[in-house]
């Protein structure tokens, strides 16, 4: 149970800056996900915390103690890799026991701890098997057991479910979450899959090109993205470029090529009249009305380029006269009650509320 802190951490490889002045705090017992595209620096951050890399600048702190100089085997971290990295020449029990043996624990205690841990990951009967005899999901559970049995200060997971198929991945995500909450170990999870991040995290840290764009609970990251990158990376979105006409009364009015767009509630502090901005809204917050009908603060005309039926929702792809592409999600259950279905080629009005509009500097 440890809190982790990266303070002013930078990592450069020659002229390439993998991380720039990152400040990150992970609370005791929390499950934090580092989310970002390939090459954004999230794995670098993980390796810095693990001790596999040293920062070019800045400090790595465990519970307030600087650990920059400590090698991995002195930091008490539990690492889980994407390809499991189980020792193929050892049995499952021997794999799990490895860390405890390195710490010089007494043999009978090791045996008991290993047995308990394997029970916890539901592999109690697999102790004498070799990793090559297990399935992918089972192997990943052994990797988890091996990392957790040493009671690490922090559990570090580097895209651990990338090699599993969709269904297995989803069940493993929930298993890891439950395990983490039972054992209450501080965990840092790296992934590029935003759905995965939304599913399991206490907080998500969105990383882009070596910088932290936002750290927040999943709901806040999704509903109140701090930057345009977070908006585009987490969930789908529609965005328009525009210029701020006026700010006041808790409203920002932006002039876009498609008319005026109004953003309601709070205005981000750094925006002033005349600024170039991007306005955006989430597809599920928009709805379609027949051409010419207005019904909301914001709207944009267009025609239905395509409709994709996905069981519970339909994705509508709309193109405006100026060529702007938009996506609107419609709940199929609402068809007949408040809404109707639309055909390809129909002319429609895309509508959305000011309160669901987001504004970012361009």
């Amino acid at each position, binding site marked *: 149970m440890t809190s982790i802190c990266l303070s002013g951490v930078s990592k450069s490889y020659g002229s390439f800056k993998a991380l720039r002045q990152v400040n990150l705090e992970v609370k005791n017992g929390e499950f934090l996900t580092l989310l970002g595209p390939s090459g954004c620096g999230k794995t670098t951050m993980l390796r810095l915390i*693990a*001790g*596999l890399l040293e920062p070019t600048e800045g400090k790595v702190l465990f519970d307030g103690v600087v650990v920059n100089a400590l*090698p*991995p*085997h002195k930091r*008490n*971290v*539990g*690492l889980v*890799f994407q*390809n499991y*990295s189980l*020792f*193929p*020449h050892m049995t499952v029990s021997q794999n799990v026991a*490895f*860390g405890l043996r*390195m*710490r010089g624990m007494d043999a009978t205690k090791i045996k008991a701890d290993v047995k308990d841990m394997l029970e916890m990951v539901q592999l109690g009967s697999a102790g004498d098997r*070799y990793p*090559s*005899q297990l399935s992918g999901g089972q192997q990943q559970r052994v990797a988890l057991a*091996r*990392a957790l049995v*040493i009671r690490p200060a922090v559990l570090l997971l580097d895209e651990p479910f990338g090699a599993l198929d969709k269904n297995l991945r989803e069940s493993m995500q929930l298993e890891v979450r439950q395990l983490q909450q039972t054992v209450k170990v501080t965990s840092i999870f790296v992934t590029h899959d935003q759905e995965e991040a939304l599913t399991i995290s206490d907080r998500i840290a969105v990383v882009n090109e070596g910088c932290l764009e936002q750290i927040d609970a999943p709901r806040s990251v999704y509903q109140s993205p701090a930057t345009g990158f977070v908006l585009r990376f987490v969930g789908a979105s529609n965005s328009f470029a525009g210029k701020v006409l006026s700010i006041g009364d808790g409203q920002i009015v932006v002039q876009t090529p498609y008319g005026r767009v109004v953003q309601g509630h709070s205005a981000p502090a750094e925006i002033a009249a005349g600024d170039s901005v991007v306005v955006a809204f989430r597809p599920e917050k928009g709805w379609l009305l027949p051409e010419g009908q207005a019904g909301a603060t914001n709207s944009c005309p267009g025609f239905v380029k395509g409709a994709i039926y996905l069981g519970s929702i339909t994705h509508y792809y709309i193109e405006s006269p100026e060529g702007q592409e938009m996506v609107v999600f419609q709940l199929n259950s609402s068809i007949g009650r408040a809404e109707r279905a639309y055909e390809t080629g129909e002319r429609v009005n895309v509508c959305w509320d000011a309160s669901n509009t987001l504004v970012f500097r361009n």
Partner: protein
Amino acid sequence: MSTSHSTLVGGSYAKRLYGASSEILSRLERKSWAFILLLLVPLTYLVLVYGLPILILIARSLFSYNPVTGITGGFTLNNYWHFLRDPAYLNVLWSSLRIGLLVTILDLVIGYPVAYLLARISGTKKQILMACIVSPLLVSIVIRTFSWEVLLRGSGPVSHILMAIQIIREPLRVLNTETAVIIALVHVYLPFMILPLATVIESIDPTLELAAGSLGANNLRRFIEVVFPLSIPGVAAGCMLVLTTSVSAYVTPAMLSGGTFLVMPTLVAQQMQVLVDWSFGSAISVVLIVVVLTIVALFSWWAESASKYRSGRVAK
């Protein structure tokens, strides 16, 4: 099909080659005449150049033969008795084995770190190291052995350097001893230890070492617990190559022993060329062949049992 030889000779690369060739073979099997004809050419060559001489050798050892008159005598096991009962000859066998074992152990100790380095670096550095390891093989073994003869002379550079730094006080007298032969053989066969080892070590996932490190293993324990056990197929391959070639080495012991002691191949040469006792010489050769085949069998078995985890087949 057994894959014991493929795991021995070069780990994953050889396995893929073996798999590919057995696919080709099974495709050819369908057209059996073409298959047979295709095999007939190399098979004939091997039989004529390799199989037949060995059969003749075995035959010579079992029937007394006079090369001068060309007359073959009756069946006899005397040649083998003669060898196995005489402690002088058994001593020669023991010399060969002793030299072979020492060379193998030394090559393993010297070669392992080099193999590890070769396996873990990449790019230009790797190519340079590879060139350094392989380039001696481009030079004839006679020349290399002769170079050692020059180096290890009492009046040679090694002697001078050792005297200068006062490790020895008289000129070096290692030439014409077993030590000189061992030194030269260690050098000559080192690439045969390094290359198979490096191939196998390269196939060991580096994240395994990272995982071991994160679990608390320092460098030494990482080596003992993870790297070495997984490299055993390579160790077996390298040891087998070095042991079999050094036990049956001829040129190097012939040149560096100065005639002061015999190993099996030089004993055979003596019997064949000097004493013209071809039957006895053949028997000694057969003994050597049996020894080498036993070594091959033992190491193959070792490599096979050590690689069972990696291929997923476990006898449970």
